[in-house]
C-alpha cells in the first residue's frame, strides 16, 4: 500500500459535441468553401463583426443576413505570438518542432480581430503592423481552416 493519503484515478471517456451554428455562421462557414470571408456590418453603428453575429455588442442592434458583407481577405497584423508549444487534447503541452506564428489580424473592412495562423514567414521577420492576406487551403481540414501570409 502506498504511503499517499489519496488514490488518483481517471476514466477513459471523451464527450463529443455538435454545436449548431445558426444562420449567419452557416453562411460564413459555407462561404469559406468558396474562398470568401463574410462579416456582418451593424446597420446602426457600423461596427463590422467577423465572423458575423446576430447582435451588435456595441450598440445592441440586431444583425441579419442583409447585413452580411464580403471582405477582401487583406488585413493588418495587430499582434502576434510565436508558439513554441501546443496544447494536446489531454492537457499536456507538446514542444513544436518548428515554432509557429499565431497572428491577431484585423481584416480590411472589419473591426473584430481574429486569431489565425500566419504562415510563409520567418518568425523573426514578423512585425506588428505588417500587411497580410488570406491564404486558402487546398483542402480544408475542418469547417474553419484558413491562414494568412504577408503581402509581398
Amino acid at each position, binding site marked *: 500500500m502506498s504511503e499517499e493519503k489519496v488514490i488518483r*484515478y481517471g476514466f477513459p471517456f*471523451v464527450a463529443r459535441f455538435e454545436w449548431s*451554428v445558426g*444562420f449567419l455562421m452557416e453562411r460564413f462557414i459555407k462561404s469559406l468553401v468558396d474562398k470568401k470571408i463574410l462579416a456582418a456590418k451593424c446597420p446602426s453603428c457600423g461596427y463590422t463583426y467577423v465572423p458575423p453575429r446576430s447582435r451588435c455588442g456595441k450598440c445592441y442592434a440586431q444583425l441579419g443576413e442583409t447585413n452580411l458583407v464580403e471582405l477582401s481577405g487583406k488585413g493588418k497584423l495587430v499582434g502576434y505570438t510565436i508558439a513554441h508549444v501546443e496544447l494536446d487534447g*489531454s492537457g499536456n503541452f507538446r514542444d513544436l518542432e518548428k515554432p509557429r506564428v499565431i497572428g491577431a489580424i484585423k481584416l480590411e473592412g472589419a473591426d473584430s480581430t481574429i486569431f489565425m495562423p500566419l504562415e510563409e514567414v520567418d518568425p523573426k521577420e514578423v512585425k506588428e503592423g505588417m500587411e497580410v492576406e488570406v491564404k486558402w487551403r487546398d483542402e480544408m481540414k475542418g469547417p*474553419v481552416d484558413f491562414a494568412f501570409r504577408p503581402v509581398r
Partner: protein
Amino acid sequence: MPYIKEERPETLSVEGEWNIGATTWKANRLLEEFVKGLKQKKLIGSLCLGCGKVIVPPRNICGRCHRRMEGRVVVSDKGTITCFTYTPPAARGKYKVMGIDPVEMGVVQEGEVLVPVFVRFDGSDSNMSLPLIGVDPKEVYIGMRVRVVWAEEPKGELSDIVGVEPIK
C-alpha cells in the same frame, strides 16, 4: 404520440470534444478499507463520534456535526429492504449504458428482471443500493428481511457482495 409538432429549419453543426479522460480524480482510502473488510465477509461502516450515526460504506465527513467520521464499526450482513424497484424483462437493443448494450455483452440475460433494492443493514443508519437475487418482484415488499449473498471466495473487492437474498 400526438404531440404538437413545430417544424424548425436546422443549421449545420460543428464538432468538438471534452476530454473527460484527461481528468485525474482523487479519492480517499475509505473504500479500500471497506473492501478489505469484504474479504473477511465483514461490512465496515464509519461511525460519527459526534452524533453516533453509522454509514456503510464508510463516509469521510458527517455534515451535521461537521467533523470526520473517525469511528469504525462492523455492521451485520442482515438488513431490511427500505426501497425497491424492478425493470421489465431485459431485451437486446432496448437500452444502453455508456454505449454498451448489457444483454449483447452478456452481463444481463435476455428476459432477466433486475430488482435493485435499498438495504439498511442492522446497526447502520444508511442505505446501500444492491441487487436482490432470486425473488419474483411481486413478492418484494418494503420491510422485507434480507442477508448478503457473499461471493464463494471473497477477493476483497466490491463484487464480493453478489447481492442480497430474503432470509427464509
